[in-house]
């Protein structure tokens, strides 16, 4: 058998060995951007303007909330970065973002905010988000909303959600309340806040701590789709 033919056969065999579950998970995802449904304010008008443009830049999810096995060590409160944790993540993300130009991703070289929770580092850039953890690094481009935005995606079938929003200069602390009852404290820097959690649970309110008190705003996002909400598409191998 010629080498060409052997390579074709080997590659076809190897490609076919990939579990059908991988394809099913990908096809169960709803990739379409979703519209935002703003909720009524709970109290305090100080931050109403900041939230007026709130929106979901992206919402996609696999399965339900609460599965955290892929994100062991996650904390609802930001933790102090381990030695060189942020620097290491920055270097890796910079390398990815430099290479991102060819895949259509542009970004400024320095992050404007770094959120660390256990072994995970979330870096927010002007035009991108970089999420690093043990053995993985994921870059998302084209974030962008003048208000609070959430982005739910998955790693190895485990959903996680990133929330980003504006934090006026007088705000010193931001806490998000999720529909599953979890409270997640965000990191605040550069007039923004950012947080993430290992589930597809939607935030229902955000509390801004200021010198004059705490102001809470309601948030309303469409529910994350589940694998049962959208029927799996038929598989196809054309290309």
């Amino acid at each position: 058998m010629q080498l060409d033919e052997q390579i074709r056969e080997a590659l076809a065999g190897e490609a076919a060995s990939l579990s059908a579950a991988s394809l099913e998970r990908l096809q169960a995802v709803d990739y379409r951007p979703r519209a935002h449904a703003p909720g009524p304010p709970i109290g305090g008008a100080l931050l109403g303007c900041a939230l007026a443009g709130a929106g979901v830049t992206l919402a996609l999810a696999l399965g339900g909330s609460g599965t955290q096995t892929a994100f062991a060590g996650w904390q609802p409160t930001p933790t102090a970065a381990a030695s060189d944790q942020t620097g290491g993540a920055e270097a890796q993300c910079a390398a990815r973002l430099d290479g991102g130009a060819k895949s259509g991703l542009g970004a400024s070289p320095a992050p404007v905010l770094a959120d660390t929770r256990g072994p995970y580092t979330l870096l927010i850039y002007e035009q991108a988000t970089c999420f690093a953890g043990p053995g993985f690094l994921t870059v998302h481009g084209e974030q962008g909303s003048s208000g609070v935005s959430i982005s739910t995606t998955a790693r190895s079938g485990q959903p996680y959600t990133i929330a980003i929003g504006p934090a006026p200069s007088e705000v010193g602390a931001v806490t998000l309340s999720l529909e599953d009852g979890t409270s997640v404290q965000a990191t605040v820097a550069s007039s923004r806040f950012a947080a993430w959690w290992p589930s597809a649970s939607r935030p229902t309110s955000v509390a801004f701590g200021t010198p004059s008190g705490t102001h809470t705003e309601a948030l309303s996002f469409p529910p994350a789709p589940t694998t049962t909400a959208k029927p799996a598409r038929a598989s196809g191998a054309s290309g």
Partner: protein
Amino acid sequence: MRRPQDEFDGFVSEQCERLLRTVYLIVRDPATAEDVTQETLLRLARRWPRVRHMRHRNAYARRIAVNLALDECSARRREGEALERQGAVTAGAGAEEGERLEQRADLIAALGELSPRARAVIVLRYYGDLSEAQIAETLGCSVGTVKTTTSRALSKLRRQGGKIHAAR
């Protein structure tokens, strides 16, 4: 006339499997292949109003997927992983079939020894059935570079495959 959303669903239905398997052959890890393919489809969804009018949108999707896969390889340095599971495949096979599967395992292992970029060229050529010009467009390089990379990769595969086989 189909709605853009339906068009995108149709596109995913048609292309998802091919993209996933191509990415898998480059990154050689199922979970990473899922992540890369998901990110590819995510970017396509965001840009769909523009992408849907492209004549070669399959090629555009492939370019995003392959470049993301190569970025992932660069970040993780996954080369050199042994595909031990191939051993289990050959264990229950007949003598002739077993030898064929051994050769296949040798080749897959040798592919893992190639640089990610050279592996991508081989995958696009022999799994994707792309022309040298199409591979050059996908990788953003010249046809000459594709020819050189292919030639060197085939030589290495020939040598490496023989070496692995002889060592058994």
